[in-house]
């Protein structure tokens, strides 16, 4: 028999007394093992002391004072019944309702802040986020852009990927328009930074759902006869579709926008109007070169009026 097993026995016997069925084996081990015998001798020595122990007498007045305290408790109910009891009181219900309402309202406010800003007449930040598209002969409509001298950027200053699509006139950085802060950077630096579509411009639309990404993608080529406002709408789609990000990396990421096959059913569910579904099904799709970002123009037209109006306003 091992000491470990005997030790378990001793723990049991110290509490419940020695088991007669195991006593012989137990005593045999104690006779052969001085260490276990010393442990057991300590236990039995304390047992002798505890057997002679006399519990203290309570004070004579304790019984009457306890009964008096019980009478007092009966006469005066408890002042409060803990948190749950407090919450069930009318004041607690009111405070709880106000807290819930405040949380809900602040969530709504954060969610729709960008839409409200657009509806208030501010220029849509996303329109300027687009790098300039190539000149199209069939598009005479004026595009909302600052004068060329306001932000002149030589084509060679832009990154190589966007340089081919960049005209001589560049648009101002979108980030500055969103934040409303004056840009401390020189115009050349700002134009260089404007070449990739900086998703900071549309951050309010997705920052609670995905990490901040950057899109390195040129805009879609404007088709002949397409109004300039279409670009604004397209980028609004980018903004609103940003929560649909399925993969991204530190420098670039892939969006699956409203025109994507996988995203279309979800969009139709979200906006079940018949014209949306029909337009979505019939519309052509364009892919932002190499980025995987595809946008369906027909879907853009089904977005809320204030979004489209804001984009058009910015485009003008």
């Amino acid at each position, binding site marked *: 028999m091992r000491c470990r097993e005997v030790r378990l026995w*001793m*723990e*049991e016997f*110290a*509490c*419940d007394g020695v088991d007669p069925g195991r006593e012989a084996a137990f005593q045999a081990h104690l006779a052969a093992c001085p260490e276990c015998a010393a*442990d057991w001798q*300590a*236990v039995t*020595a*304390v*047992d002798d*002391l*505890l057997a*002679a*122990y*006399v*519990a*203290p*007498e*309570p*004070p004579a007045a*304790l*019984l009457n*004072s*306890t*009964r008096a*305290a*019980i*009478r007092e*408790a*009966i006469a005066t109910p*408890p002042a409060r019944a803990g948190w749950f009891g407090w919450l069930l009181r009318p004041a607690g219900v009111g405070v709880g309702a106000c807290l819930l309402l405040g949380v809900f309202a602040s969530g709504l406010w954060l969610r729709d802040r960008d839409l409200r800003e657009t509806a208030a007449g501010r220029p849509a930040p996303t329109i300027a986020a687009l790098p300039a598209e190539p000149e199209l002969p069939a598009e005479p409509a004026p595009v909302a852009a600052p004068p060329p001298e306001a932000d002149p950027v030589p084509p060679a200053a832009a990154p190589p990927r966007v340089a081919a699509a960049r005209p001589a006139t560049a648009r101002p950085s979108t980030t500055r328009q969103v934040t409303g802060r004056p840009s401390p950077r020189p115009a050349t630096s700002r134009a260089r930074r404007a070449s990739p579509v900086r998703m900071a411009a549309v951050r309010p639309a997705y920052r609670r759902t995905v990490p901040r990404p950057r899109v390195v993608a040129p805009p879609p080529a404007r088709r002949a006869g397409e109004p300039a406002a279409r670009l604004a709408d397209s980028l609004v789609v980018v903004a609103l579709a940003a929560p649909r990000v399925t993969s991204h990396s530190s420098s670039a990421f892939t969006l699956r926008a409203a025109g994507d096959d996988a995203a279309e059913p979800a969009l139709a569910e979200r906006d079940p109007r018949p014209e949306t579904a029909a337009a979505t099904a019939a519309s052509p799709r364009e892919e932002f070169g190499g980025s995987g970002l595809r946008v369906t123009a027909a879907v853009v037209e089904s977005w809320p009026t204030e979004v489209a109006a804001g984009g058009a306003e910015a485009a003008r």
Partner: protein
Amino acid sequence: MDEAALVRRAQTGDTLAFDELVGLYQRAVFGFVQHLVGSADDAAEVTQEVFVRAWRYLDRFDPARPLKPWLYTIAANRAHSHRRHEQPRETVALDEAGPEPAAPDNPAGDLERHELSCEVRAAIRQLSAQQRDAMVLVELEGMTAVEAAAVMKIEAVTVRQHVFRGKKRLRELLAGYIDGRSSEDH
């Protein structure tokens, strides 16, 4: 009248029945609490709280079960709460409970038992909280390991470990007293 009947009557609001229960268990609860809080004054205060809370929550108690472990559970909670919120007293209260009533026919033997009890109480206070609770419930209050485990909200095997280790620790703490008695005997 048995305990369950008293409990049922008390649950209907019979304060006299609850008074009987207080009389039955007051001494045991006080002794248990004093081991946990040390001072007799604190023990009396906590004992009073225990019975007030027991009266307040008596409707949640199942009369088919024994009342003593339930009272000890309340007492352990109140005693630990009391120890957390009270400032430690500087005096060592060995004799605060006063001497046990002396038997008129053997005053010397009773004095020795009183001295022994004071030594044991002082040694028990030096145990860890778990060992102290287990030792008091099992060795002094006569509970089984399973009953003590229900009060302490731990496993019975853990109670046994605490008792075994508590006894070994008590042997060390009371070594002088035990060895002195052994030499006197020889």
